[in-house]
């Protein structure tokens, strides 16, 4: 299948009074049509910034796209006119962000906001747009949709507001939906409902999904492919089963190890990754995780490892590491 999105060497920096923040560094990957890509990382990993940058949603300045191409259906998003990009953003690429209160317009009813998107991007008449808007709210399982659609955003609970955001995100039947920490602020039971809803929607519409999160559990249940980012780089990427069963990067391994399983509860201590994420104004010279990695070699500390096939795993399992993690773990050294 053809990739719907192809990111090539994307590099993004922010010029601040204190110095240059190297937020995204040479990120390349592609997504197949219909695929669900889970992107995991913590603050400063570049997981959110790189999608905002490719969608023209970072302020420039201070943001700056240093180089790279982002091909969406063979068209470079980074070279598009702002008008064309806006058009694609509303119709072919949908977005759902963490905080619906900042993305929804508080003074317009949910109906106005949905109808506006539908008339502008889908060319529907007012009546058809209103009918479709109600359908969309029903699709995201908002009870009593025909009535609730007349409400303003603040009249919905957090979980319901996030559903409204998803309804707007999918209103114009985007080929690609990008959700950035879309369930992070929600309670776990509401998160579970939204994740189930996303799976249903994918089955119904076949859309491609990028789900950005810090939660390994969410990624495990939702994704076909997982991509682990750190300090603006991809450290590991591959089929979700392969990566969880046999992580090849020490950061991925450390994150999975730090989760409290029954075994670790019995041990009375969680595995902990030492140190803190790097300062992106002065990133470490080699592998960005090297300063926190007990497996790091001299080469890790000086030379950035390329992302390449993980030896002995499936061909689409990629890792950026100078060390061979399974061998080190088998050797029992830490």
């Amino acid at each position, binding site marked *: 299948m053809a990739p719907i999105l192809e990111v090539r060497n994307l590099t993004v920096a922010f010029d601040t009074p204190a110095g240059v923040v190297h937020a995204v560094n040479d990120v390349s990957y592609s997504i197949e049509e219909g695929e669900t890509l889970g992107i995991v990382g913590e603050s400063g990993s570049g997981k959110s910034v790189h999608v905002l940058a490719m969608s023209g949603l970072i302020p420039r300045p201070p943001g700056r796209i240093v180089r790279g191409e982002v091909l969406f259906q063979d068209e470079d998003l980074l070279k598009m006119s702002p008008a064309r990009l806006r058009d694609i953003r509303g119709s072919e690429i949908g977005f759902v962000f963490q905080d619906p209160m900042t993305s929804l317009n508080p003074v317009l009813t949910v109906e106005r906001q949905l109808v506006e998107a539908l008339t502008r991007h889908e060319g529907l008449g007012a009546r058809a747009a209103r009918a479709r808007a109600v359908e969309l709210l029903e699709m995201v399982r908002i009870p009593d949709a025909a009535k609730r659609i007349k409400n303003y955003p603040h009249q919905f609970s957090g979980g319901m507001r996030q559903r409204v955001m998803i309804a707007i995100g999918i209103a114009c039947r985007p080929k690609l939906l990008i959700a950035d920490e879309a369930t992070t602020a929600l309670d776990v039971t509401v998160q579970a*409902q939204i994740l189930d809803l996303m799976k249903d929607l994918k089955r119904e519409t076949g859309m491609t999904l990028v789900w950005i999160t810090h939660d390994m559990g*969410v990624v*495990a249940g939702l994704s076909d492919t997982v991509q682990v980012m750190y300090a603006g780089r991809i450290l590991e990427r591959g089929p979700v089963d392969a990566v*969880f069963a046999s992580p090849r990067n020490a950061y991925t391994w450390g994150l999975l190890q730090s989760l409290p399983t029954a075994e670790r509860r019995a041990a009375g201590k969680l*595995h*902990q*990754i030492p140190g*803190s*994420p790097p300062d992106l104004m002065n990133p470490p010279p080699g592998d960005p995780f090297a300063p926190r990695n007990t497996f790091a070699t001299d080469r890790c500390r000086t030379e950035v490892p390329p992302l390449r096939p993980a030896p002995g795993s499936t061909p689409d399992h990629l890792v950026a590491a100078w060390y061979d993690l399974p061998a080190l773990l088998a050797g029992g050294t830490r």
Partner: protein
Amino acid sequence: MKPEILSVHDLTKIYRGATEVRAVDGVSFSIAEGEVLGLVGESGSGKSTTGRLVLRLEDPTGGTIQFDGKPIHDVSQSAMKPIRRQMQVVFQDPYAALNPRMTVGDFVGEPLLIHSVCRRGSELRDRVAELFRQVNLDPAMMKRYPHEFSGGQRQRINIARALGLRPRLIVADEPITALDVSIQAQIVNLFKELQEELGLAYLFIAHDLSMVRFLCHRVAVMLKGRIVEIAPTEALFEDPRHPYTQSLLSAIPIPDPKLERARSRINFDRDAHRFAPDDRLVEVAPGHFVMGQP
């Protein structure tokens, strides 16, 4: 059985405005010395308000709170001062809690001066250095300001300040929620080490149930201002009885693709749920209480 350090009975907090909100509605629990009680629930469940009432940051509408056998629910704020020494707090946001204009050493030392535990000078410096070491921070960093520290380090600073007066109970309100995932395990381990070394009791308020399972001896689940289930940790996770607890546990994402894809959720309609007038906590197994009909 160790003596109780905290005992809360029928605690109630009602906010009266345009509508009446029963934020905490007849909550009872106790914490033994050196015990960790997890208080879990979703937004609006009343778990944070319960913590604030225990700390007397807010006044309860009804019910009693006993600390070390003495009632504290109706004492004045000045009478609370000696009790505060023994009952400290760690909040969610390690950024907001710190004073940006104070060196972190002064911040950790401040309660020691307020409560006249240490004299200014070398006595204070030595004690603050000891506290820094206790939370695995280099005492050489005492002279620095909060902005020079990462989120995890700032939470360590807050914990060091809370430990200074040698409290017997720490109320921790979502202390790892705002931290990066690679840092959360560090702070949870620190809480556990300190608890074991110093014999501290915690009221650990959290929504991350897997961390609660790791750290807590007992867990109380709150729904709409009430405790619907309270039990020893493993009993609660292995054999949840209340439909809401079951729903909550079935919603925690499992970081294992095969297990997570295969599981089914248990749904519970929080909004539609109503308590019956005679609902109360019923003991279904030793120490395992569930809200229901007697």
